[in-house]
C-alpha cells in the first residue's frame, strides 16, 4: 500500500506529505502548535496533550495547555510548550 502511494506521488509529482496524507505540524514559538491532519485525541491534560496523527503519536508537553481550536482534523493547542515528542503507535 505504501509503495502504491509513493508510486502515485512520483507519477503525479506531488509533495510527499500530500500523497501520503501526512499531518502538518506548525509551531509558533513556544506558545502555540497547530496540527493539521490529526485523527483523534488520545489524552488531554493541562500539562500533556497526546494526538493521534495516523502514522505516529504526537505528544506535547508544557504548562497550562489548552485546546484553542478543534475543527475536524485541524487542532490548535495553546499554552507554554516545553517539548514535543513523536512516537510510533
Amino acid at each position, binding site marked *: 500500500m505504501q509503495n502504491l502511494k509513493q508510486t502515485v506521488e512520483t507519477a503525479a509529482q506531488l509533495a510527499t506529505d500530500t500523497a501520503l496524507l501526512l499531518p502538518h505540524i506548525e509551531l509558533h514559538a513556544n506558545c502555540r502548535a497547530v496540527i493539521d491532519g490529526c485523527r483523534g*485525541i*488520545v489524552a488531554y491534560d493541562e500539562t500533556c496533550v497526546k494526538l493521534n496523527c495516523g502514522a505516529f503519536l504526537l505528544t506535547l508537553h508544557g504548562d497550562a495547555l489548552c*485546546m484553542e481550536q478543534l475543527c475536524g482534523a485541524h487542532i490548535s493547542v495553546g499554552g507554554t510548550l516545553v517539548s514535543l515528542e513523536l512516537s510510533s503507535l
Partner: protein
Amino acid sequence: MRKGFFFSFLRGSVTFVAEGGFPERFLNLCNVRGIALFSPQMHQKTLTATVRRSDYFRLRDVAKRSGMRLRAREKHGLPFFLRRHRAHLALPVAGAVFAVLAFVLSGFVWSVESTGCASVSRTEVLAAAETLGLHAGVWRKNIDTGAVAQEVMHRLNGKVSWVGVNLSGTRAEVEVHPYIDPGEDETYGEPANIVADFDGLLLSLQVHSGRAAAPVGTGVRKGDLLISGVSVDRYGISHLYEARGIATALHDDVLCVERAQQTAGGGYTKVQTVPALRLLHLTVPLGMFPPSRNFDGFTVFRQAQWGGVSLPLGVVLQTRCYRTERPSQSTFGLLLDDFTCAFEARYEKTNVLSTSLSLRQSAGKYALTGESRCIDYIGQTQKIDTGDEVPTD
C-alpha cells in the same frame, strides 16, 4: 470578531462543564459529529467548553457514550434573554415601538429655519415657505426643494438674490442671500468698523469685508469691536476700509409700554393664556380651551431643544385678550393693544426665544413690561476717524 460575536449572540450559546468518564473520547466524538466546541479547557479532569444553543442537546448522547456528566454553567445570547424576560413582554414591545416611531418620525421635517439674510424678515421667509408646503410636520420626500426655493425667491422678488432649501436630517434650512445693488457693492464707503449695538453673547459672525475682532461664543459689551476695518500689511502700513458683515448675538431685552389710566371707553379687559402642545404640525390643547387662529393677542412658541437640536415638539402659549363692557378696566386692554403693536414692530427681524410679561400700576398709569430672550443682529457701523475732515467752523 464583532460580527462573529453578534451572530453568536443572536443564536445563543451555552457554557457547560463535563465531569468524569473519558474527556478525550468526548472531544473525539464531538469532532466526528461536527459539534463545534469553543475554547475547550481541561482542568483536573473537568472539561469546560462553550457550544451553540442548538448543539447543546446533541451533546447528551455524546456525554452518555463517553461516560461524562454534563452540567450547563452559563447561558448567553438573545434566545435566553427573551426567555428570561418573557414575563416583561412590554420591554421588547416598547423597544420595537420606539424603533419604529423613531424611523417614521425621522421622515418628517421637525423644524424650519431661515439663515443668511438681514434685510428680509425671517418671519416673511418662513411664511412664504409655509404657503408652499415647507413647514414643520411635512413629509420629507414630499418637498421639492428646488421648486420651493424658486417660488420663495419669486415671492420675495427684489429683496433676495438667491434662495436655497437644504434638508439636513429632520431640519430644513432656507438659506437666503440678500439682493445687493451692484452699483453700491462695488464702491466701498468711508472707513468704518462694526461694533456691538448692545450687550450680549456673540453667536455668529460672518465677515464680508474686514477682519473678525471678536471670537464667537464670548460675551460682548455695547461698543466692543466686532469687525475691524483696519488691516496692517506685512510692511506695517495700515489700510482703512469699510468693514461689512453680519453678527448675531443672544441677549435679554426689555420692552415696556405705559398708558395712563382711563375711566371710560371700550377695550380689552380680560387676558387669558391658553397653552397647547405642538407636535410637528399637530396642536393639542393642554387646557380647557382649544387654540384658535383668529384671536386678539399674540402667540409665543417655545420649541423643545435637546443637544442643540430642535425637536418636533414644543409649547404654544396664546395670550388672548377679550373685550367686555366695563369701561373702568378698558385701559389695560388698550395697553395690550399698544404692547402687541410695539412687540411686533420691535421684534420683526428678531428670533424671540421666550417672553415673560409683568404688569404694574402706579400713579394712575399702567406699565406692561415684557422681558424677552432673543437672538438679534448686533452689528452697528461706526466710522473710523481718519483726521482728514476739515472743521466747518
